[in-house]
């Protein structure tokens, strides 16, 4: 199972959730497979999906799923310490770990070699870290949504990409429709 298949498998689970999605192919795949106004797509700035998602979770009470990658978490590794020390029950970090920098041509990351991001997350103080295989991700994500505890999921999948178009929606449109969803959910 490669990342695009993993993302397709979680579409029913994230359909009604606030989602912050990582830069590059993950956002492009999610946009193509299941665009929704409650998705926030990163068009730039590698490494900050987990931080942006945590910011949304810290500012309001609706659940937020930050979809990140192994390479992006490695580039902002200290985010795991910030997450652990500011736990929020409405925050879920899903790290799609394919052991490679997918968007740049599948160069291997250290997460695909000796470094365990789940172990790093635990060492940083994250108390609810779940490791799973790609096919188990939808169930793990649903369990996290049903629970009332911050969860970090490290989902292992194969590296590999499909052809996807770039996102042509403007950043302001992406932000404003996402913020509209945040407001609507917090008001109702």
């Amino acid at each position, binding site marked *: 199972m490669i990342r695009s298949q993993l993302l397709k498998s979680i579409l029913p689970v994230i359909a009604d959730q606030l989602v912050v999605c990582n830069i590059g192919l993950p956002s492009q795949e999610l946009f193509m497979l299941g665009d929704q106004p409650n998705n926030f797509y990163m068009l*730039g700035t590698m490494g*900050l999906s987990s931080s*942006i*998602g945590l*910011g949304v979770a810290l500012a309001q009470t609706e659940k937020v799923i930050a979809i990140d990658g192994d390479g992006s978490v490695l580039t902002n590794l200290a985010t795991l*310490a910030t997450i652990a020390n500011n736990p929020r029950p409405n925050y879920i970090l899903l790290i799609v770990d394919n052991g490679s920098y997918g968007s740049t041509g599948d160069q291997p990351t250290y997460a695909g070699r000796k470094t365990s991001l789940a172990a790093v997350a635990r060492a940083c103080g994250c108390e609810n870290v779940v490791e799973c295989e790609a096919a188990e991700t939808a169930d793990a994500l649903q369990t996290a949504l049903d629970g009332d505890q911050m969860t970090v999921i490290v989902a292992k999948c194969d590296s590999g990409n499909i052809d996807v178009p770039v996102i042509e929606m403007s*950043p302001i449109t992406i932000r404003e429709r996402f913020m509209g969803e945040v407001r609507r959910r917090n008001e109702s």
Partner: protein
Amino acid sequence: MVKEVDRRIVDDLVANDIGFVTTVPCKQLAGVIEVLQGRDEILHVPSNKEDEGMGLCAGAYMGGKRPCIIMQNTAIGVVVNTLATLIQYYQIPLPMLISYRGEVGEKVACQVEMAVHTKAILQQLGIPTYHFHHGEQVEELDGILKHTAMCKKPTAILTDANFWSTAQ
């Protein structure tokens, strides 16, 4: 040690509905950080690096809280990409309260090395920049915060050693 100016700055943040502040510390900013940590109106979340902090700020803004980042000017060398591709690209209002190290009164020579690049980088990025050199310039902060919210841009408030030493 907390001074009146530290309370004044945090009061201005609160009066402008800033509900989320992230910090990477500097000794000139220690008083401000101490005051804001004790204010119920502000959620203070320290970050490990300033680009991470700007990610938190972008998220907090989308979650409904006005953000502010407090950091040292050396961070300007860290956050150029984040300012351009996240804060500016998505039009997120972000006042940056910056300790301007390396100006007259500085004791650490290496701080001057980034001080000489600070305004040039901010200018290159087209970021409205305000330099507080005398203590009474704190009076301008309220207007700058309103301006930032209005134009939905990052703005830089550079506070140098003379500002902090002459502020009440």
